[in-house]
C-alpha cells in the first residue's frame, strides 16, 4: 500500500516536471539561440552555443532594430495608459459602487459590457481621424485606456463594495469634501486592487500590437512588439538576431510578471471564484 502510494506520487511529480518542461522549452530555445552565430542559429535547435556566448547579437539588434526608440514608445504607451486607467477607473468604480440608484447600476453594466464588446477597427479609424488622434502617440494612449477601462472598472468596483461606508460617513462629518474623501480616505484603501490594475494594464499594453498596426502609420512611433515582428520579417534568416530581439522585448514582461505575480493572479481570478 505504502509503496503504491509512493509510486503514484513519484508518477505525478514526473508528469508535472515533464509538463513544465514542455512549457519552458520554447523560451529556453529562444534564449539559447540568441547567443549563437547566425549560422549556428539557422536550424533553431536546443544545442548549446559553441565558441562562447555571442553577446554582440544584442548590441547589433539594438542598433538594427532601433530598439532604443521602440522601447521608449512601449514605455510611454504602457505607463500613459496605466496612469489614465488607474485614475479614471478608480473614480468611476468608486461613485458607481457607492451610489445605489438604478441609473448608476445601469452605467456600471454599460461600461462593463465593454469587456465582451469587439472593437470595430474600421469605423474606429474614422473616429480617430475626426478627433485628430490618428497617427499620434496621445491617440494610442487614449485608445489603450478606453479599451481597458471596462475590465479595470469591473475589478475595482467589487473591491470598493468591500470598504465599509462608515469610514466615508466619519470623514464627511469631519468636513471632507467629496474629492478629499476620495483622494485621502478611499484611494489609500484601494491600493491592493490598484496595484493589480497597474500590473495588468502595463502587461496588456506592452504585449498588444493590433492598435498600432491599425492606427500608427510611421514606424518611429511603433512599440517594441510590433517592431520585433517587423524585424522578424526583414531578418527571417537571422534567427540569432530575431531571438535576441524577442528576449529584449519579453524581458520587461517577465520582470513585471515576477514582481507582480501575486497581483496578476488576484486580478485574473477576480470574479471567477466566490470570495
Amino acid at each position: 500500500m505504502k509503496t503504491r502510494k509512493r509510486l503514484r506520487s513519484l508518477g505525478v511529480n514526473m508528469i508535472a516536471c515533464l509538463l513544465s518542461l514542455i512549457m519552458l522549452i520554447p523560451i529556453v530555445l529562444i534564449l539559447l539561440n540568441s547567443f549563437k552565430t547566425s549560422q549556428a542559429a539557422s536550424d533553431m535547435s536546443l544545442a548549446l552555443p559553441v565558441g562562447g556566448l555571442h553577446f554582440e547579437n544584442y548590441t547589433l539588434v539594438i542598433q538594427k532594430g532601433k530598439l532604443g526608440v521602440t522601447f521608449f514608445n512601449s514605455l510611454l504607451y504602457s505607463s500613459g495608459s496605466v496612469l489614465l486607467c488607474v485614475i479614471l477607473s478608480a473614480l468611476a468604480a468608486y461613485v458607481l459602487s457607492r451610489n445605489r440608484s438604478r441609473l448608476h447600476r445601469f452605467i456600471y453594466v454599460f461600461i462593463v459590457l465593454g469587456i465582451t464588446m469587439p472593437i470595430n477597427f474600421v469605423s474606429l479609424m474614422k473616429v480617430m481621424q475626426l478627433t485628430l488622434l490618428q497617427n499620434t502617440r496621445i491617440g494610442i494612449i487614449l485608445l489603450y485606456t478606453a479599451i481597458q477601462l471596462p475590465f479595470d472598472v469591473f475589478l475595482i468596483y467589487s473591491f470598493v463594495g468591500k470598504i465599509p461606508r462608515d469610514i466615508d460617513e466619519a470623514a464627511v462629518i469631519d468636513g471632507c469634501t467629496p474629492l478629499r474623501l476620495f483622494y485621502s480616505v478611499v484611494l489609500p484603501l484601494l491600493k491592493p486592487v490598484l496595484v493589480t490594475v497597474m500590473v495588468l494594464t502595463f502587461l496588456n499594453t506592452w504585449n498588444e500590437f493590433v492598435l498600432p498596426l491599425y492606427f500608427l502609420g510611421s514606424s518611429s512611433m511603433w512599440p517594441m512588439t510590433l517592431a520585433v515582428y517587423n524585424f522578424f520579417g526583414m531578418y527571417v534568416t537571422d534567427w540569432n538576431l530575431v531571438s535576441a530581439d524577442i528576449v529584449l522585448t519579453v524581458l520587461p514582461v517577465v520582470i513585471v510578471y515576477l514582481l507582480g505575480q501575486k497581483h496578476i493572479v488576484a486580478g485574473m481570478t477576480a470574479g471567477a471564484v466566490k470570495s
Partner: protein
Amino acid sequence: MNERKVYPTYFAAGALFLYVILYVFPGIIGIGYAFTDWSVYSKELHYIGFDNFATVFSSNYNYTRYITNTLTFTVVTTVMKNILGIGLALMLTKRIRFLNFHRAVMYVPSVLSALIVGMIFRSILNPKVGLLNVTLRAVGLDGLTMQWLTDSKIAFRSVMAVDIWKGMGYIMTIFIAGIMSISPMYFEAADIDGANSWQRFRYITLPMLSPTLAVTTVLNVIYGLKVFDMVYALTNGGPGYATEVLYTGVYKEFGLGRYAIGTALSSIMFVFMLVVGYFMIRLLTRNEESLA
C-alpha cells in the same frame, strides 16, 4: 448623508467619455457604415441596403468560412483549455514538489504577447528544421512529421494547439483558486464514506467547480471570438483561407481599402456579442448583486 452629493456622478465622466467616444460610438456608427459603399476610393457614401451583408453570406466568397472558422476556434479552444486547465489544476493542488515553481511556469505563456509566441512557434513548427519535426525524426516517429502550418488540412489545428498551449495556464490558475475555495469538509466526509478519487472528483470537485467553469467558459469564448494575434502571427490566415478568422478577415479588408465589408463583418460580431455579452456580464458580476 446625501449620496449624490458625497459621491458626485461626474467622477465617472472621464471614464464614460473615453469609453463612449472611442469604443461604443465606433461600434454603433460601424453598423451604419455597413449599409454603405464606403471604400478607400469613395468620395461620398451611398446607401446600398443589405448588399454588404448579402456579400458576406454569399457562397461566392469565403466570408462564411471566416465565421465558421472563428466559431470552430472558439469551441475547440474553450473545451480544450477547460479540460486541460482542470487537469493541471487538479495535479497542482496535490502535494508535490516545487508546486509554486510548476504553477508559475504553467502561467508564463499567458503573460507573453501572442505575437511573440506565434513567432517562436513558426520556428518550432518549421517542417525542415523546426524543433518538433526534428524531435519526431530523432525518436523514429517520421510518420508523424507534418507541414504543421502550411498544410491546409492541419494548419488550423496547429494554430488552435499553440493557442491552447499559451492559454491553458491562465485557465488553470482560475481553477486552482476554485479548487482551493472548496471546503475540505466535503472531502473529509467523502473519505469517511469510502469514496475513491474518481468519485471525489465526480461528485464533489466537479459540481463545486461549476460556477468557476462557467466563468472560464465565458472568458474563453470572449477571447476566442475576438482572436486575431495568434492567427496573424502564425499563418496570417493562410494557406489560402484555411485559417482565416473574422478579425484577420477584417484586417485584410481594411488593407484592401474595402471598408464597408470590413465594418459589416465587425458589425455582425458587434451585434452578436452585445446579445451574448449581456448574459456573460451578468454571470461575471453575479457576486456583486449581493453587495450592491
